[in-house]
């Protein structure tokens, strides 16, 4: 691959740091599967605790789909962390390594370098999320088979087996979309500093603080909540609603997209005019 984008992709995936995400997911997902295989009933009971007194739940509810949707809860904190490892390193890593001096003295605009790096970040994020979902699903189906999906929550939602797969694809796509916003924030922080640790900690700090602010039932915080991007990160859960409220999905997706573009725009502004002193 001689193309600039191809090289960026190669650089990212050949870096040991990037493999942390895949190694972690590759280790944790089977571990959770084994745990559920041995003692999964407890989890199922807790998932159905709100409705168990009023309904009889029949069929194979402990199935691959349930396990996958359960594991997708790692999208709150764990997966964002793994994504910032890669996204936060995109620009700052070049500064740390001194390799900006190799790239930016070429007859290529900084905008192009930035955009190829951003595209690589998006690809990396996509592969991390897809890897999580695909591994959970394949391993889950192999161990637990298929069935209707019981969606944990206060009300009883059961997605019939025939509909689960396309909804799961939708959840995966929307999860990627949300994680792109997280990646964009890490990318923005990455454009500011010369070491990847800052962007990783910074992004996680922002996410955690925003979650906290969004979940405290105080008037002031609830007024701020619509302006925090973390409010919309649960976008992927919307696909479990029966029927799906498409207007909510579109609004949330548009807002997250807006944040992503905003973060990218800011990083472009910083990067295009920055003095390279590393």
């Amino acid at each position, binding site marked *: 691959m001689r193309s600039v984008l191809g*090289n960026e992709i190669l650089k990212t995936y*050949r870096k*040991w740091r990037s493999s942390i995400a895949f190694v972690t997911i590759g280790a944790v997902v089977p571990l959770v599967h084994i745990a559920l295989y041995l003692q999964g009933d407890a989890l199922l009971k807790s998932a159905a605790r709100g409705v168990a007194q009023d309904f009889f739940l029949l069929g194979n509810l402990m199935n691959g789909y349930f396990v996958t949707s359960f594991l997708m809860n790692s999208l709150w904190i764990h997966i964002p962390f793994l994504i910032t490892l890669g996204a936060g390193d995109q620009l700052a890593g070049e500064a740390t390594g*001194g390799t*900006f001096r*190799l790239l*930016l003295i070429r007859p290529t*605009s900084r905008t192009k370098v930035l955009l190829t790096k951003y595209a690589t970040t998006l690809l990396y994020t996509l592969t991390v999320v897809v890897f999580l979902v695909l591994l959970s699903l394949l391993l889950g189906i192999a161990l637990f088979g298929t069935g209707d999906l019981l969606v944990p929550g206060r009300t009883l939602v059961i997605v019939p087996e025939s509909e689960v797969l396309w909804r799961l694809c939708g959840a995966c796509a929307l999860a990627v979309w949300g994680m792109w916003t997280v990646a964009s924030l890490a990318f923005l922080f990455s454009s500011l500093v010369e070491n990847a640790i800052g962007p990783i900690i910074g992004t996680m700090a922002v996410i955690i603080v925003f979650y906290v602010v969004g979940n405290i039932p105080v008037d002031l915080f609830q007024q701020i909540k619509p302006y925090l991007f973390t409010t919309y990160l649960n976008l992927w859960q919307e696909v479990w609603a029966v029927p799906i409220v498409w207007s909510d999905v579109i609004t949330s997706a548009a807002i997250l997209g807006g944040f992503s573009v905003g973060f990218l725009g800011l990083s472009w502004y910083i990067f295009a005019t920055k003095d*390279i*002193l590393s």
Partner: protein
Amino acid sequence: MHRPDEPLLQTTNLGKRYKRRWAVRNLNLTVHRGEVFGFLGPNGAGKSTTIRMLLSLVKPTTGAVKLFGKSLRGHRREVLARIGGLVERPDFYLYLSGRKNLEIVAALKGDVRDGEIDEVLDIVGLLRRADDKVKTYSHGMKQRLGIAQALLGFPEIVILDEPTSGLDPQGIKEVRDLIRRLRDDRSMTVFLSSHLLHEIEQTATSMAIINAGTVMVQGSVQELLSAGDLVLRVEARPVEGALRVLSGVPGVGEVKRDGEVIECSLPRERISTLNQRLVEAGIEVSALVPKRSLEEYFLSITEGASEMAPALPGARPDRSGTGQLSVDHPEG
């Protein structure tokens, strides 16, 4: 179009301020096609900042850079396509092979022929190790790979920032020979920075000395090195007698005594006269060591004896801003 008599590289009043401090100020450099231009200055003089401005890594606060008669700011991509550069330490993607690193550079450069990566690797003698990870390279090999990436596309001018730093004597000699070959065989113009006078002296055809962000002198190496009187170190006994003889020799300038050692400035052709007089006066001469004034001058800058270095004897510091050669040729 770029005219042949026009400077290949020219900076006018180039300056860079970091917060309060000026790293480079009113820098006027002129480099002509075919020169090996030595950019000499002590550490922290502003060499790297200047080179970063020449390669568009850092945006000048004042002034402009012109290459091939075109402004770097206005024709950035066009100009950079014709330059190769190595800035400070040779840093690479350590987890990739030397060849892969060059492929990354080549893809960004765009106009690199097939087989050219092998060619530049061969020039710097790295072809055999090309497929090893850069992590496994010695410092000298990284330095050579750094030169190789600057040569990709065989640009009209290569800008090398301290290319021999950290090399062993053999490595230094190889780089020096390589630079000569680039000029002679490929008619490249070479811009070379160094903090060592003798290095510039051995490789460059013209030079500028920079200190505290300003060009102190600029001109052809030959003319600058022969400019001014020599500084002669005299070791003779008795010292008092030697001093007495010295004061009688015409042309002797400032005389300094430091214990048993005397230093004085005098024209080159007077050394033999002085020697003869000393011997005639029955004085035991154990050493007469001539040093060129440029060397002395540069030493005084590097030692950082004062913020503002003393003026070079026989040469006028280039404060005019014209970038012209400013050496007064000694008569005779």
